[in-house]
Structures are given as structure tokens and as C-alpha cells.
């Protein structure tokens, strides 16, 4: 026993960290479950839902569009350079399109919306928590989950796939711009190859991923905001945790969904 004594403190620390992480995951899962149950039960706050759609969907369009444009352009250049090694430059349009709609479109849109929206939701709800606005909602017979969480989660789950779809088109356009402007592709041939090799499920799977990422982003923002500690530091920590948590969860969910959708 005495030989193990030097390891006791680090092992106990590791155990505490693992238990803490598991407890946090459990609380988050319960929060997500509660959100889903409130999603199905009235009252529904339509005005708050529409405002959330505007904030999360419409106002994220510029950042998602720009990210997709540059990602699509860079992807075309990379595929061209890589394809040239075995004389396969002609695959640029189709691989750019497939890469965008299956993988980069949803992941880039998810990460950009996570940075923009999870942070703002966590900061807004966290500030409401520390200034007793959440308590005020309860005393005014309004369930904070229904009024704050459900509209945001529903809006993100519905609008992020739309952002992904728009991002896909802009990303493909980025590839087309580089392909026709820099790599010497014929415009009509580029578009024909893009369209010809693209299958419905390539696009559909990306949109489903977008919905999952939207759900993750809003749940993370709301959960960390609702559980924000007191003061500016507490809100700052909640905001950071929401963005980091949402980003990691998006990448993990992306892998899991890719396994489910495309593993043989």
C-alpha cells in the first residue's frame, strides 16, 4: 500500500476530474431532454422564436457565406494541386462539391455559428441570470425554459441547415470562381461536372448535420447561460464554456454522424 501512496493524490485528482466531467455531461443531457419535452408542450412563444430565427439564421448569413466562399476556393486549389500528382485534375468540380456539401459546409457553418451564436446566447442568458431577470420571469408566471431556451433551440435547429445549404452553394461558387478564373476550367463543364456527380444524400446528410449542430449550439449556449456563476467573471466563463463545448461537440457529432451515414 505504501508503494502506491505517492500516486494517491494524482489518482484522486484524476478521479475527481472524470467524475466532474461525467456529472457535467449528465446535467447537460438532462437539460437537453427537458428542452425537448418543453418543445412539445404549450405555451409557445412565436415572437421570441421569430426573433431568434433572425438573430441566429439571418444575421449569421454574412459570416457563414464568407467562410464558405474562401473554404470552397481553397478546397478547389488543394484538390487541383493534389489531383495533379496522378493526372486527376478533372475531379476538381465534383470533389469540391462533395467535400463542401458533405463535410466542410456543415462543419464550417456549425463552427462559425457556434462562435457567433453560442457565445451571444450564453452571455445574454448569463447576464439575465446574474441580474435576476430569470427569477423575474418565474415570478411573472413564465417558464424560463419555454421563453428563453425553446425558441432559441428550435430556431437554431431549423435555421442552421438553411445556412448550411446557402453555404454549400456559396462554397461551390468559390470553387467555381477559382476553377474558371485561375485553373483554366470551362465554366459550363465545371458546373456540369459539379451537378452530375452530386447525389441527393450528399446534400441531405449535410443538412441533417446542420440541424444537429444547430441543436448543439443553442443547447450549449442556453445551458451555460442558465448555469452562469455570479458576476462578470461568471458570465465570461459561461460564454467561453459555451463556445468551447459547442465546438468540440460539433466535431464529435460530425464524426458520429459521418460514421452513421457513410460507413459501409
Amino acid at each position, binding site marked *: 500500500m505504501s508503494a502506491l501512496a505517492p500516486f494517491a493524490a494524482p489518482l484522486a485528482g484524476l478521479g475527481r476530474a472524470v467524475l466532474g466531467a461525467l456529472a457535467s455531461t449528465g446535467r447537460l443531457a438532462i437539460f437537453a431532454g427537458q428542452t425537448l419535452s418543453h418543445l412539445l408542450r404549450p405555451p409557445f*412563444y412565436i415572437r421570441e422564436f421569430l426573433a431568434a430565427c433572425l438573430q441566429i439564421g439571418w444575421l449569421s448569413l454574412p459570416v457563414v457565406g464568407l467562410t464558405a466562399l474562401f473554404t470552397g476556393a481553397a478546397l478547389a486549389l488543394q484538390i487541383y494541386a493534389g489531383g495533379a500528382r496522378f493526372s486527376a485534375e478533372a475531379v476538381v468540380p465534383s470533389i469540391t462539391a462533395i467535400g463542401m456539401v458533405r463535410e466542410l459546409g456543415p462543419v464550417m457553418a456549425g463552427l462559425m455559428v457556434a462562435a457567433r451564436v453560442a457565445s451571444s446566447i450564453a452571455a445574454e442568458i448569463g447576464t439575465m441570470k446574474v441580474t435576476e431577470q430569470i427569477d423575474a420571469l418565474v415570478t*411573472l408566471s413564465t417558464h424560463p425554459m419555454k421563453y428563453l431556451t425553446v425558441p432559441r433551440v428550435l430556431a437554431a435547429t431549423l435555421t442552421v441547415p438553411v445556412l448550411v445549404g446557402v453555404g454549400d452553394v456559396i462554397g461551390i461558387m468559390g470553387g467555381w470562381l477559382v476553377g474558371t478564373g485561375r485553373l483554366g476550367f470551362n465554366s459550363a463543364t465545371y458546373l456540369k461536372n459539379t451537378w452530375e456527380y452530386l447525389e441527393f444524400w450528399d446534400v441531405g446528410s449535410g443538412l441533417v448535420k446542420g440541424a444537429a449542430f444547430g441543436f448543439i449550439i443553442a443547447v450549449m449556449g442556453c445551458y451555460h447561460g442558465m448555469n452562469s456563476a455570479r458576476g462578470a467573471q461568471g458570465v465570461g466563463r459561461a460564454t467561453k464554456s459555451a463556445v468551447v463545448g459547442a465546438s468540440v461537440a460539433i466535431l464529435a457529432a460530425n464524426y458520429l454522424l459521418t460514421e452513421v451515414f457513410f460507413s459501409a
Partner: protein
Amino acid sequence: MIELQGVTKSFGSNHVLRGVDLTIPRGESMVIIGGSGTGKSVLLKCILGLVRPDGGTITLDGQDVTTGDRDAFLARFGMLFQGGALFDSLTVWQNVAFRLLRGALKRPKAEAREIAIEKLRRVGLGPQVADLYPAELSGGMQKRVSLARAIAAEPEIIFFDEPTTGLDPIMAGVINELIREIVTEMGATAMTITHDMTSVRAISDRVAMLHGGKVRWTGEIAEMDTTSDPYVQQFIHGRPDGPIESLR
């Protein structure tokens, strides 16, 4: 009537409430005094169900507050929060009419706005502030708007959490006067927590002092100055020396 029996609440090893017994008769204005950190706000939040007590019972007109229709229970309450707790994203009138724009008490928008403007007038604010946002108002005006929101649905019971904290003495006097007038004219049961002795004298019918997680003393406002309880005497006169320990 609100009745608390043996209410306890701990946060980890911090035993905030250690068995609070208190009765607030219908139509009376009860003020809870006590030093910072003695659990006044926690007590109030326990009654509203914002914090779940660890033990004891809280009843409203004989019915346990943790059972029954929660919306119907909360509809009987109005609350003025210490910092106002106005919703930043809504205009002043939408804040005041919040309860009237949704839920069981929902009214047409025009009617809700009219009621909100009437309540704002009642707390001394003109209709020109109705379309402003809370951030555009001074601290005193925010307190008034919060007071208007608390009384908008004409509740039977109103809670005031540190209503004069952060206000200048004149504005504090105005708020105290408004609270007294409104409680009297509405016939509401009021519970106020404060350590501002001017507020205590202006607002209360009865006073209870919370210390060490229990109600240390309770009595009529007129009895407060004459009581021999050393804790009350030290507190109301703000003496640094006495049975209540103070950190220096």
C-alpha cells in the same frame, strides 16, 4: 396569510436558514431586517419557489406552496427586485405589461399598453418613457418601472427586495412613499427585506429580525424602538459593538 414553519436551507456547509418560523397576516406590511448574508433574500425566494427549502413548511392561506397549480400561485404575487430585473430587450411598457401580454392574464395589446401607461403614471412616470428601453433610464426610474411591473396585474401579495438600495435619499423616500401608498390602496399583503431603517419605518406594520438563520425578534413597528433585545437595538442604531459580530 403566509406561514413559515421550521424552514431550513443550506448551501453546502453554509447553513443559511436554520428553522425560520414566521407568520405574515393578510393585508399587513411585514419588513424583514437583518445584516447582509443572513438569508433574507433566500427566505423570500423560498416562499416564491425560486429556491427549494431543505426542510420545514411554507403555506399560503393554509395550502402548501410546493403543491397545487404553480401558475395560479404565482399569479397572486408581484415582486420588486433589488436591481429592478427589467428585461433589457423589451421596452418599458412591455416590461410593465409583461404578464398582461402572455399567459392566463393575456389582454389585447392596446389594452395592455393602456394599463402599463396607467401603472407608470401611478409610480410618477409619464407616457413618454413607455417606449424607451430600461438601459435609457436612471436607477431611480428603473426602480419605479419595476414597481409598476410588480403591481400591473394587481397582485394580492407583493414582495420588495431591498427597494431603496443604490438610490439617493430623496429618491429612496419617494420609493418608500409609493410602496406605502400602493400597498394601502391595493390592500395587498407586503413583505419587504431591507437594512435601510428609514424604509422600515416608512413601510412596515410589523418587523421581523433575521439573525443566525432564525427569526430573532418580531413585533409591531412601534415596539421596535422600545424592545430590550440587544440584537435589534444594535442593528437599528447601527452600533459596531454588540452581540452581532462585525468584520473589520
